């Protein structure tokens, strides 16, 4: 398989949030603001890279019957390390993410990649797959967080991961017109539902568009071929 294909498939074609609908708990819980969503995305990226690489490294040593407990222990260890590092260096982000940082352990996305990709492929391919999946996750949480924060507060407020101070604030429309339900819990479900509907509508449209373009290209190539032959 081509290397860039692995990354693109992980990020878009098998996008965990919008296409596969896996691991939605952190997606819903940490997207009330752009900065916490980015923090969650980076934590996920770190965990998924290390877990994919480690599982792929020892894939010949794991007996098939107990692979799930083995993977759980590997992932739990990685998450414990990430949690400790984040508490030490990025205390405000760790406090914001709270329990959702610990429960990366039981995130289906990480399991799905370890089980369906890292166990069967080489170390470098698994690394690329982890990067693709992680970037796809980051893009989706950022999209959802942006939509929620803009509609819900009328501004994008990026906070520092270390002490929670606002780094920059971009106001798009005045706060009195904001629909504050979207930064609350119920708004998370509604906004994600709307975005999923939008994407399920767009994906077939884009793919038929691509197909049509490919057909047109083939036709053009054919006609030019015929023309050159005629000459």
């Amino acid at each position, binding site marked *: 398989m081509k290397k860039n294909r692995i990354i693109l498939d992980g990020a878009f074609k098998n996008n965990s949030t919008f296409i596969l*609908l*896996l*691991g*939605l*708990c*952190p997606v*819903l*819980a940490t997207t009330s603001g752009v900065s916490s969503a980015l923090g969650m995305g980076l934590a996920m990226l770190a965990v998924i890279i290390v877990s994919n690489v480690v599982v792929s490294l020892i894939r010949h040593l794991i007996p098939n019957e107990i692979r*799930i*407990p083995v993977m*759980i*222990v590997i992932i*739990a*260890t990685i*998450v*414990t390390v990430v*949690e*400790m590092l984040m508490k030490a260096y990025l205390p405000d982000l760790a406090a914001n993410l709270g*329990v959702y940082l*610990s*429960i990366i*352990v*039981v*995130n*289906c996305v990480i*399991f799905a990649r370890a089980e369906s990709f890292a166990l069967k492929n080489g170390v470098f391919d698994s690394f690329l797959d982890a990067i693709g999946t992680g970037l796809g996750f980051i893009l989706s949480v950022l999209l959802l967080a942006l939509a929620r924060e803009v509609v819900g507060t009328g501004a994008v407020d990026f906070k520092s991961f270390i002490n929670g101070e606002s780094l920059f604030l971009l106001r798009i429309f005045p706060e009195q017109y904001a629909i504050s*339900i979207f930064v*609350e*819990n*119920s*708004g*998370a*479900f*509604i906004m*994600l*539902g*709307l975005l*999923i*509907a*939008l994407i*399920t*509508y767009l994906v077939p449209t884009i793919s038929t568009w691509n197909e049509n373009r490919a057909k047109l290209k083939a036709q053009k190539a054919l006609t030019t071929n015929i023309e050159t032959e005629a000459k």
Partner: protein
Amino acid sequence: MNILLIALAAILVNNVVLSRFLGICGFLGATKKATSAIGMSLALAFVVIFGGIISYSLYFFILVPLDLEFLRLVAFILVIASLVQFVEMFIKRFVPSLYKSLGIYLPLITTNCVVLTVALDVAAVSGGVPDYTFLTMVVYVFASAVGFGLVTVLFSYIQERLANTPNMPKAFQGPASALLIAGLMAIAFLGFKGMI
């Protein structure tokens, strides 16, 4: 009254699904039919209750005296994985029809965030004192399980009704409409906030 407060808060106000976004996979996946939603909630309730009690005991009677608090994630997840294995064997042996209808969602209880979060919740320590005594912990794990079951079963009835709607736009069929319904339920549950 403290116990009643803990129970009501965990069932209605801080509902695990609607206000803490836990267990969404099972919530969306196993609720096409009310019967499988009930089966799923019961299986999950068993794991949540026993997982919570065992994790609490393990944490405060073994890990804390040995200064091994940092191992709690690994320890809890192993407890939960073995419990799920046990429940799976039990259901397969005694209720094979339920075993078939739950399918992949039964082993996935291991990776259901509700179980691990409840276990982590009861092991929380603030200012050197455990947040829960043994009694309040038991109430809390029961109430969390009931909260999940209540919302999941209600949701599955709505989903059953909605399955036969002819006029829904194609893009909204399936998960999108399910999430919108969950959002509306969450708004409804917001009303309970004033209760406490």
